[in-house]
């Protein structure tokens, strides 16, 4: 049974420059207890998927499609209903934890608040519960740290605080949006380890969003590669990373291979000005006439006209 089932998700933003299509026909399934990773360059709509699930998109966003979570469509839930799902059944951690914690409240207060938010315990128990969560996420001397403010914490510790907040209700699904991007390499490894421990310990599903393929390989079983707002290749992470089929995935993997950096030529197309045919063809070394004319569909986990040839 799927825990989360996203079907034909479209997200548009209305901006001064006109309508911008950021997600088009996005589909994704997450099984209970599985972990999946969205990878792709910045601006390809990874974070939009996460925010759509949480219904945290800005007001100028137009959303259509369906997001089934435990047989309820998150997109049509009332505000109050979605609020009870947020932080309770689905939690999210963000990149740049320093900007994600409120600077004027103590760290402990912000953790305790998420414990209380969903009526998980009484007011006077919240402090103990919060300290317990801090211990769980490996924050040293949590009793002392409880009363400190975010600016007194290092980046890695702040991400642990964010994870404590997310873990308050042991959610069924954890969404981690670039959880390690702004951290030091050594701290990154610790945070990855922590997330790994927590998802196994509590049997959570994980939706990881990253452009760091190393982190993805560490944490996830499945992967979906995104380009310009749609999935171009998906499947078992080992399989996709070992034998990439889509030219974009190949380029992406080659870009960080051991024998030096090989950037992908060109840049992500502007979402207001997508090319005809396959959206990747201007940057694709294998592109043929067919690619310039018609847009490929996602078949057997790959969106390419030519994958059988290559």
């Amino acid at each position, binding site marked *: 049974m799927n825990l989360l089932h996203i079907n034909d998700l479209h997200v548009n933003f209305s901006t001064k420059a006109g309508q911008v299509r950021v997600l088009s026909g996005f589909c994704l399934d997450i099984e209970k207890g599985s972990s999946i990773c969205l990878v792709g360059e910045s601006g390809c709509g990874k974070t939009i998927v996460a925010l759509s699930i949480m219904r*945290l998109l800005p007001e100028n966003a137009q959303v259509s499609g369906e997001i089934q979570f435990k047989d309820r469509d998150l997109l049509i839930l009332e505000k109050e209903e979605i*609020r009870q799902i947020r932080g*309770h059944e689905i939690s999210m951690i*963000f990149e740049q934890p320093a900007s994600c914690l*409120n*600077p004027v*409240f103590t760290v402990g207060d912000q953790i305790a*608040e998420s414990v209380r938010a969903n009526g998980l315990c009484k007011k006077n128990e919240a402090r103990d519960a919060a300290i317990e969560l801090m211990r769980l996420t490996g924050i040293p001397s949590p009793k002392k740290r409880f009363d400190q403010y975010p600016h007194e914490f290092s980046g890695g510790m702040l991400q642990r605080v964010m994870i404590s907040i997310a873990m308050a209700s042991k959610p069924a699904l954890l969404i981690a949006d670039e959880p390690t991007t702004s951290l030091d390499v050594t701290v990154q490894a610790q945070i990855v380890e922590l997330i790994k421990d927590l998802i196994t310990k509590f049997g959570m599903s994980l939706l990881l969003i990253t452009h760091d393929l190393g982190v993805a390989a560490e944490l996830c079983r499945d992967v979906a590669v995104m380009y310009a707002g749609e999935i171009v290749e998906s499947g078992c992470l080992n399989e996709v990373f070992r034998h990439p089929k889509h030219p974009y995935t190949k380029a992406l993997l080659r870009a960080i291979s051991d024998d030096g950096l090989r950037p992908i030529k060109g840049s992500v197309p502007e979402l207001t000005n997508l090319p005809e045919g396959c959206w990747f063809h201007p940057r694709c070394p294998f592109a043929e006439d067919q690619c310039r004319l018609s847009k490929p569909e996602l078949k057997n986990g790959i969106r390419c006209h030519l994958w059988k040839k290559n």
Partner: protein
Amino acid sequence: MWRYLFGRLLLLIIVVIGVTALTFLMMYYTPGDPAAIIAIARYGGPESLSSDLISWIRHQEGLDAPIYIQYAKWLHHIFYLDMGRSLITDEPVFDKIFSRFPATLQLALASMLIYLLIAIPIGILSAVKQNSLIDYLSDIGVLVGVSMPSFWLALILILFFSIYLGWLPVCGSQGLSYLILPATTLGIGIAATTTRIVRSSMLDVLGQNYIRTARAKGLKEAIVIGKHALKNAMIPIVTIAGLQFASLLEGAVVVETIFAWPGVGRLLVDSINQRDFPMIQGCVLFIAIIFVLANLLVDCSYVYLDPRVRYNRRHQV
């Protein structure tokens, strides 16, 4: 912290010397001989003026000394809380100002309460419901509010509430009902600018990542706005509270005059009209001190609101 307080004190001294020296200089060089004013006020009408009397008074009051001696003398007396005596009534300036101060303070606090009660809810509402009808209406209200002369608003309120409806007294200071109109007049004018600042600072905060985190936690929207957003939005609001206090004092001068409210502002206007130099000087000094102290208070509450400042201060000093 001590260094900061010391800096503030230094600014206070510089401001006081700067402002009083300016007024002193202007008094000296502008028309209106203080000795003649004393002569008229204390010894009868203009017909009794004789040059002997005037020069006697001038000598008696030390007005024949060079200007810098007079100023130095005045400064020297300030240290003993002696601001001289009124040219008109011969009352000690210090006592007079302090007897008037409670009325001004009462008026200032009441109008502060009014403008905060208007500005904070409307500012928050129009930020949360940006581009809605409420936002649009409050925007128009703000524009009208900042464009409206306070003395005109005062007269319109008097016309409506005192003359047509007869609910409130026109002027005077015999009780709480006398406070309502002046405080409202003063409050509405400042509420307009404050609403605008609350709105823009709230909009700024609502776009921050920690607000998204608060929502992602599943907090009720009322808590997200009322706790997480408001406390951060208060920081710029408090920062400009010092400037607001200036408008409050400026408005008080006009409003006290209209409503015959016995405060320091009206005392200043009366003294200017009577060319009562020591009293003008005293009021200027007093207002400078009050203004700097109010800003000090603002800075202190700022420290309370923003733990980052608290932290930095502790580690610097």
